């Protein structure tokens, strides 16, 4: 399977839903509304699974305008001949309270000489390579850098809410079936003139199990991992 075939466009999910249900084109916008809502609900529970890395330009004011699907940052690095990590987020917050006040983050912790796998120093002190803070006042999200940096670009790895409002949103294949069932449930619940209480209940059950399936696929906690976690501080010393 090619890489492009592994991911679905959100618009294609709506197309498939309309085709499966013989609905005319006039339903498209409404179904997209439902699909976006379904995806958003899913991301409220599972935001941590979607992290992506992008290259951003630094503005003349020494700031970086963050993308609209930004939820929280993970790693910020300076781009150039060598990539220098400025900070790694130790307190990832998937639901930022940015309603009425400005939220500010410091630069997390700093790892030096990280590139060979050995960490020689670790601390919350400001990085010698420059520091930054993330400011999100609800209307504008930006990353403010303290000193002008040489190359005017940074790499940002961040947690995304999964939307691309300026283009086509792509979704993970695990979510595809969930979204189709979400659309079917909404259609049954609100617009299908032939829906009955039992058919609505059946669709809600399908959606419930689809949600469980998504959770099971993303958070694949198997028994061995669970045992490893529980026995983290246990030694296998013999009792005598």
């Amino acid at each position: 399977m090619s890489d492009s075939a592994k991911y679905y466009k959100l618009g294609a999910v709506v197309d498939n839903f309309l085709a499966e249900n013989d609905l005319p084109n006039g339903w498209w916008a409404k179904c997209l509304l439902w699909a976006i809502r379904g995806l958003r609900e899913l991301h409220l529970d599972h935001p941590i699974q979607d992290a992506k890395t992008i290259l951003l330009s630094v503005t003349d004011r020494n700031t970086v305008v963050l993308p609209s699907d930004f939820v929280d940052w993970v790693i910020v690095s300076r781009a150039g001949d060598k990539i220098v990590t400025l900070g790694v987020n130790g307190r990832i917050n998937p639901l930022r309270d940015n309603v009425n006040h400005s939220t500010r983050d410091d630069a997390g912790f700093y790892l030096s000489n990280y590139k060979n796998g050995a960490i020689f120093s670790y601390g919350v002190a400001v990085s010698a390579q420059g520091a930054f803070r993330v400011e999100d006042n609800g209307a504008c999200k930006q990353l403010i850098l303290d000193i002008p940096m040489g190359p005017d670009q940074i790499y940002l790895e961040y947690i995304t809410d999964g939307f691309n409002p300026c283009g086509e949103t792509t979704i993970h294949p695990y979510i595809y079936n969930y979204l189709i069932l979400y659309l079917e449930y909404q259609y049954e619940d609100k617009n299908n003139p032939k829906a009955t209480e039992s058919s609505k209940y059946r669709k809600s059950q399908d959606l419930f199990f689809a949600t469980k399936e998504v959770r099971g696929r993303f958070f694949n906690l198997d028994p061995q991992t669970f045992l490893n976690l529980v026995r983290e501080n246990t030694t296998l010393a013999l009792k005598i």
Partner: protein
Amino acid sequence: MKTKRWFAEQVMIELTNDHLNIDNKIDEREVMLRLDATVNELAAKNYFENWKLGGYGVDDQFTTTFDVTVTDQENSLNSYFAWPANYAALPRNGGIVEIWPKKWSKIDQPSVVIVSHQDYRRYRTNRAGFLEGRLGGFPNWPNFEFMQCEVGKNYGTVFGVTLVIRDSSMIADDAPYGIPSDKENFLIATCVEWYRIRKQVPQDSVRDNKDAA
């Protein structure tokens, strides 16, 4: 091949109960218009029959495809084209089956998303408002208005439009008249019945000064 003329002839033969001759008072062009009106009604009926069966579409034999030319407006106002014909009033603009760019470099362009003007305004405030980058538009009579400007420049000015309609001017008398086979007899019978009822309506047979145009 059953043409529109063939259907008109069947109606006239049933009405005259004789071979057609020069004395026949009903003109075939008059019958053709009546046929088209009946087919339009059948198309809407077909939609609701399909709905009963679980589908929601109109049979493709009831649709007609037109070519339209898109006009781009100045000052970033929305592009538009004029409707080539009136279409059947079906729920959620179901009378408009499809609109798509005919001459565009990419062959995979999906059909234009059809919304209502009300939805267009309401959806602007949420993330579905921009239709994930797809081309959309709404009927704003007598035009179809796109949600973008410079559509003709970006997608080409020629668009195909498929409507649920029987426009008598668009289908030649000798061209195949696409009536589903199970509806042919119903179409003829309905037209014959319409003329029989009309014949029973009292006529103004008194010649007086009110007859002057």
